């Protein structure tokens, strides 16, 4: 009996916690389906229905002066939830351009991260060379600095290289901030793979390079997924660095583009929320489809086999 009560209490607690976690995200979805000023709406409902009105002129839509039921008590007629904001997002803004920019930058950063982290981590794991220890400590040290501390040095560096306001400049910064963690992570994973596998491959006739990409790389797929996800996330949803580096609206990434919906006097909440929902869809799909790699990647090396 006591165990049952305990189970029920835990269930209730977890349900409340889940609800508290999910509700804000659902609220954003709800805002994206409403008109702009519905953000101030105190109603908890996610989906709203059109308020009933008296169609005096019989034109099938509410006109000013026609009476209506003010269900939301906001002294105005509400048209209810619709996909209008999404439609406007794609047709009346540069959302597709921002998406394209984000895709290019994120793809290149992810590719750079995977290529350099997989090979750099392998070198640190398998080879003994001068500067190896120093290199590893240096990689660790860079992780101690938050990105905002590095904004000014980044800006000065890119200015000298004339890479301000360019894809390449942004890619360099995103790659250099994501790579240290990715290299460490790959190195740690390679350390768990017995060197005898590569030795066996070399005796079987492989060159060092063949042993790496035919044997070791396929084995390290969980770690590569983590590296790819981390690199992708570092660039897809990053705002501060992009805001400093990019000034031309044609080069705006999605976070910058969404921020442009917020003006000093008003904010287009419907568009903003719709944009936020669309931007998070690729990330959700990636996480869900790669979740099994995430779990194995996060616990890798924890138990000696």
């Amino acid at each position, binding site marked *: 009996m006591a165990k049952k009560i305990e189970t029920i209490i835990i269930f209730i607690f977890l349900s409340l916690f889940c609800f508290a976690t999910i509700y804000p995200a659902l609220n954003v979805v709800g805002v994206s389906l409403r008109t702009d000023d519905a953000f101030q709406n105190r109603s908890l409902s996610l989906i709203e229905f059109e308020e009933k009105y008296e169609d005096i002129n019989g034109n099938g839509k509410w006109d000013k002066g026609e009476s209506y039921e003010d269900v939301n008590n906001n002294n105005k007629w509400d048209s209810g939830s619709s996909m209008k904001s999404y439609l406007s997002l794609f047709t009346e803004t540069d959302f597709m351009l921002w998406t394209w920019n984000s895709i290019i930058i994120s793809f290149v950063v992810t590719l750079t991260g995977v290529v350099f982290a997989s090979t750099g981590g392998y070198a640190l794991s398998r080879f003994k060379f001068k500067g190896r220890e120093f290199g590893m400590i240096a990689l660790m040290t860079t992780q101690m600095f938050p990105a905002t501390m590095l904004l000014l040095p980044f800006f000065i560096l890119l200015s000298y290289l004339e890479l301000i306001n360019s894809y390449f400049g942004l890619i360099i910064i995103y790659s250099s901030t994501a790579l240290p963690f990715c290299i460490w992570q790959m190195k740690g994973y390679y350390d768990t793979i017995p060197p005898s596998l590569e030795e*066996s491959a070399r*005796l079987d006739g492989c060159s060092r390079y063949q042993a790496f990409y035919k044997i070791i790389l396929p084995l390290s797929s969980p770690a590569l997924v983590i590296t790819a996800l981390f690199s992708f996330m570092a660039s897809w949803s990053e705002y501060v660095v992009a805001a400093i580096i990019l000034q031309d609206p044609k080069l705006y990434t999605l976070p910058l583009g969404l921020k442009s919906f917020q003006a000093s006097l008003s904010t287009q909440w419907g568009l903003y929320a719709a944009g936020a929902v669309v931007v998070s869809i690729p990330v959700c799909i990636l996480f869900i489809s790669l979740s099994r790699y995430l779990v194995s990647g996060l616990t890798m090396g924890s138990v000696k086999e």
Partner: protein
Amino acid sequence: MSSVMLKKLSKFYGSQEILKGIDLEIKSGEFLVLVGPSGCGKSTSLRLIAGLEEVTSGEIYINDLLVNEIDPSNRDIAMVFQNYALYPQMTVRENMAFGLKIRKFNQSEVDNRVLEASDILQIQNLLDRKPKELSGGQRQRVALGRAIVRQPKVFLFDEPLSNLDAKLRQEMRIEIKRLHDLLGTTMIYVTHDQVEAMTMGDRIAVMNQGFIEQIDTPENTYKKPSNKFTSTFIGTPQINLFNGKIEKKDSDLFFITSQFSVKINNSHYQYLNLNESKIVVGIRPEDIRYVDEKNTKNIIKASVNFIEYLGQDLNIHLSMGKMNFTMKLDDTIFSKSKDSIKVNQKINININLDNVHFFDFETGEAV
């Protein structure tokens, strides 16, 4: 079939010298075992032959070809590792075929060789499984199969049976020896287990601290050890070493310790090399005999400290004064004398000096 020769082979790791200029010749078709304690350099020697480590100085020849600068992939060597080193993402068939595919063998040749090897090792039913679905013994067979399909000049084994239980080790020992008889290929086998060394090798090379102490047949290594180290390393239980001296009385030589004195037969294989001096004598446990109380000739009295029951044999741990040593006793004899052989009791023993070994007191080398 190929011969392997090591000439003044040295290996340093940093400032630590692992191999100290060893010379070794392995004849074509021979099964040579490198045996020694951990850290003696046996695995390093094997890895140098395979090309997985760089030689510091010295030369390695395979079939009279100097291979120091030749990549492991081109030495035509197959190796069986202690942890099997099977490719986890491939099936057994793919593991075995991998080396052949890298070398661009045609598919029919690959298939034939894989099937042939799997028949020899009786793993036909495992070909479509992955390594994680196999037991330890099965994995070891697959590792052997992967080596066999290559038809290399030389097989290298790096403690392949260490991870197996005792029963499986015995089975695999027989299996590997059977393979050697079947294939006739030169095999170099590294182990720290002297039972494996003695039962498998045509010759065994006993290594210690980067040197080769003795290279000989198992029988000679056991019966005529070249020094104290080899005598103590080979043989279970370990040989008993007694410090003493040789004295001449009339025309006979006697071995004398603080506890006993025994005449040395002039038929002993080292007799002609013996003279009056300090000496160390190695006596195998089986050469110390229990004597029942009725027999009082040439007896030595010793105290029983501990009895180890092993089934067919017993190891009786004895002491005389400060000397501690071990006697091997057949269970049949023990059963008849159980009341007499008990812990803390004194028993009568005598020593068969015909099979003992005399070592120089200073150098430890066989006299």
